[in-house]
């Protein structure tokens, strides 16, 4: 018995060793073949893209510049994400003249951060130009030594780039005096506007509310008199748990604050400033509680994180008032256009009702920077990358990338590119992803601030253009910018994402508590917030403020 077992065991163990050896070889093989297929794939696509250019290219070794590109899965026929009118345009107008082969590396938009982390960790395979909106990620890469310091390169090759961005915007990409990222630039920094059903107000003989109190009266009237004839389904104030709906209301309750309070009590979670600890926040929650318990805001607002339900309710003519990112209702297939299909007499008007204790319409705005555009340390083409960005920053090139072909896609009117609405689909498709290609720009650039705004408005359906302009100007009234220390707060990068959930939880719990239980619900939720990192952020910011003052 034992002998036979032995006989069996020996060959078995011998072959096991062989197996392990084989599987190791296999592992080597598979990673090898992966690598070669990736290389082969890119070489193939590259050669087809540069086939037209290679004959005209000047002699000398051609460099390949790899650039990250958001893929939203919406490339129209006959284009693909890596081979479209715009990628060819860049190859022909920047790549080929400079003997550079452009290669775009698609990254799914929704998994951008995870994918970027994987790319950065992979070392050699990472594109030469990567980007993110997330300041925490940028600071982490910079601190961990993963990024190229481009200070000298920008001075050497980036004169147009510097002029385009300006020192203010460039400063957002600096850490310890070194330029680790080239920030994109935002053409328009306004965020939010409020919108009301003007036709409902007219029916009730009310004027547009200009203060929070007047708004409250209008909401009450919407609820009681149901001017839209919704059969009791009316939602006077369309609410969600997304920033665009909660921010305008909450910030209007924040009291005037000293500089010290602004720096120490604000909490930056993700890329937004949160007023959790600022004086007046509790009053905002109290007001939320009142609105909810009187049935004035959407009952399920705590479940609506992506604003989908709100969009549906607006389109179905149930919502009387809501706040949003200022251009959102006005897109060609947006909620206003759809509302008009359902209720042809509907009229949405942009207003600015929330008023703070000083009588202004204070609301947050964006920083003047957009994405953090970064060149990984492992990149061998940092100079080419800076040249590319410098090329992109020149007004002519920017206009061409954002608008397409003059006379076909747009016409120049007083120096502003005006999109031709009657252009056929195959023509408009040329620039289907201009926002993702022109990484230096958030919003359209036409030269100066006013022109930028006009160019932006000119991109909307003509029936809404006046409304868009009104909403844009509202979003730009009485704004304040995010607070920045110019260096990361460690506790914020550590607890930021968790605290965003806790913050939403304070709102939901405070709002949904019975009025008598408000105090308890608010205090409990705030305590949880503070213990989950809020206190750590407060401590670190207080220290950082003291350090800043003593300098």
């Amino acid at each position, binding site marked *: 018995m034992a002998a036979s077992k032995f006989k069996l065991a020996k060959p078995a163990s011998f072959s096991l060793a062989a197996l392990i050896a084989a599987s190791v070889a296999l592992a080597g093989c598979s990673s090898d073949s992966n690598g070669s297929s990736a290389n082969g794939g890119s070489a193939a696509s590259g050669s087809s893209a540069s086939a037209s250019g290679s004959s005209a290219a000047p002699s000398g070794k051609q460099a390949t510049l790899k650039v990250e590109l958001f893929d939203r899965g919406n490339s129209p026929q006959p284009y693909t994400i890596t081979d479209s009118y715009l990628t060819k345009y860049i190859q022909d107008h920047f790549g080929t003249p400079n003997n550079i082969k452009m290669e775009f590396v698609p990254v799914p938009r929704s998994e951008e951060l995870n994918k970027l982390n994987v790319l950065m960790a992979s070392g050699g395979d990472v594109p030469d130009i990567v980007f993110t909106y997330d300041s925490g990620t940028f600071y982490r890469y910079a601190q961990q030594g993963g990024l190229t310091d481009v200070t000298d390169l920008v001075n050497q090759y980036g004169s147009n780039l510097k002029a385009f961005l300006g020192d203010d915007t460039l400063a957002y990409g600096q850490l310890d005096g070194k330029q680790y990222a080239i920030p994109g630039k935002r053409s328009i920094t306004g965020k939010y506007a409020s919108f009301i059903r003007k036709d409902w107000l007219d029916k009730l003989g009310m004027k547009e509310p200009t203060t929070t109190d007047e708004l409250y009266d209008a909401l009450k009237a919407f609820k009681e008199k149901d001017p839209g004839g919704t059969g009791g389904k009316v939602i006077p104030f369309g609410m969600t748990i997304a920033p665009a709906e909660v921010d305008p209301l909450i910030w209007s309750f924040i009291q005037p604050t000293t500089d010290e309070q602004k720096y120490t009590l604000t909490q930056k979670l993700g890329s937004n400033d949160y007023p959790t600890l600022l004086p007046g926040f509790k009053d905002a929650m109290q007001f939320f509680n009142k609105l909810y318990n009187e049935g004035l805001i959407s009952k399920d607002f705590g479940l609506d994180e992506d604003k989908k339900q709100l969009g549906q309710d607006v389109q179905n003519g149930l919502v009387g008032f809501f706040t949003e990112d200022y251009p959102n209702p006005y897109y060609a297939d947006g909620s206003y256009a759809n509302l008009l299909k359902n209720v042809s007499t509907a009229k949405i008007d942009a207003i600015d009702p929330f008023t703070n204790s000083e009588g202004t319409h204070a609301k947050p705005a964006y920083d003047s920077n957009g994405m953090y555009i970064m060149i990984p340390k492992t990149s061998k083409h940092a100079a080419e990358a800076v040249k590319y960005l410098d090329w992109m920053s020149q007004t002519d090139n920017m206009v061409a990338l954002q608008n397409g072909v003059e006379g076909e896609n747009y016409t120049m009117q007083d120096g502003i590119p005006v999109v031709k609405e009657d252009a056929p689909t195959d023509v408009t498709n040329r620039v289907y992803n201009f926002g993702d290609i022109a990484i230096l720009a958030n919003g359209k650039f036409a030269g100066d601030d006013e022109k930028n705004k006009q160019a932006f408005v000119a991109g909307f359906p003509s029936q809404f253009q006046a409304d868009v302009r009104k909403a844009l100007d509202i979003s730009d009234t009485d704004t304040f910018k995010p607070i920045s220390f110019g260096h990361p707060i460690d506790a914020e990068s550590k607890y930021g994402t968790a605290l965003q959930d806790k913050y939403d939880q304070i709102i939901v719990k405070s709002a*949904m508590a019975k009025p008598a239980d408000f105090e308890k619900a608010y205090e409990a939720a705030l305590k949880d917030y503070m213990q989950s990192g809020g206190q750590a952020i407060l401590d670190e910011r207080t220290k950082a403020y003291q350090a800043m003052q003593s300098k």
Partner: protein
Amino acid sequence: MRGIVYLRRYWQLYALLVLPLAYFFIFRYSPMWGVQIAFKDFNFFQGITGSKWIGMDAFREVFHMQDFYRTLRNTLMLNLLDLIVSFPAPLLLAVMLFEARPMWFKRLSQTILYIPHFISWVIIGGIVYQLFGTQSGMINNLLDRLGLDAVPFLTDKTWWLVIYLLTGVWQSAGWGTILYLAAMTGINRELFEAAEVDGAGRFKRIWHITLPGVKTTIVTLLIINLGNMMTIGFDRPFVIGNKAVLDYSDVLSTFVYRTGLESGQYTLATVVGLFQAVVGLIFVLSANFASKKLTDEGIL
């Protein structure tokens, strides 16, 4: 010499084993190399080997986080409740299916019962929202028409738990019957016939033949379930949960997702993952030990 003869005769069988073994080696064992991240201040520009050792610092930090205990509690609570509610469901279903006589009825109901298993949680989440929402959910619209008050199914903790558990049963009970049914068809038919001759009714037969016949299967599944006590699927709590019930719906997997992938705290996320694995292993081993003592059945 004999070894060579043996190999020559059976090498094809071993060759068949190469792929599965390679799979386990590449995808199950070699990633364990990364476990050391839990003991390092991981910086992915320096890679795993280049990062600094920090000993147990990360463990200390995780064990000081309030969220860790809350998500740990929720994971155990949701899994335990799930075990109580969802574990017997497929067994009951399987017994009923097994007793059903008409073949076409058996086939048809089996297929219908399997379908929910193939629906992704994201879609189930959408269905749940449409059914149970307070403002526009079907059930609440119905209650409204009957003149009753709306029930906050998704935002009240207790109601949410009920919804969470029932969707679990709905989704997995049908699929869970497969193993039981297979075991039941393996029971010798003569036992049933003999029992019938001796005058045993339907419930007697179920109690004395069917259930003992699938005892091994029940124990095996129970052990596997206990071993999974510490791990919890990501999509179900993430999709069904919402801000109002975060106190209950936030579990270890969503915690790891948030700290690891969203905040880039790989070290902390690995610590939690390792902790889960170790405690999970302890659960399996003790469940196996207990079951061997009690029933002589085990999986190891």
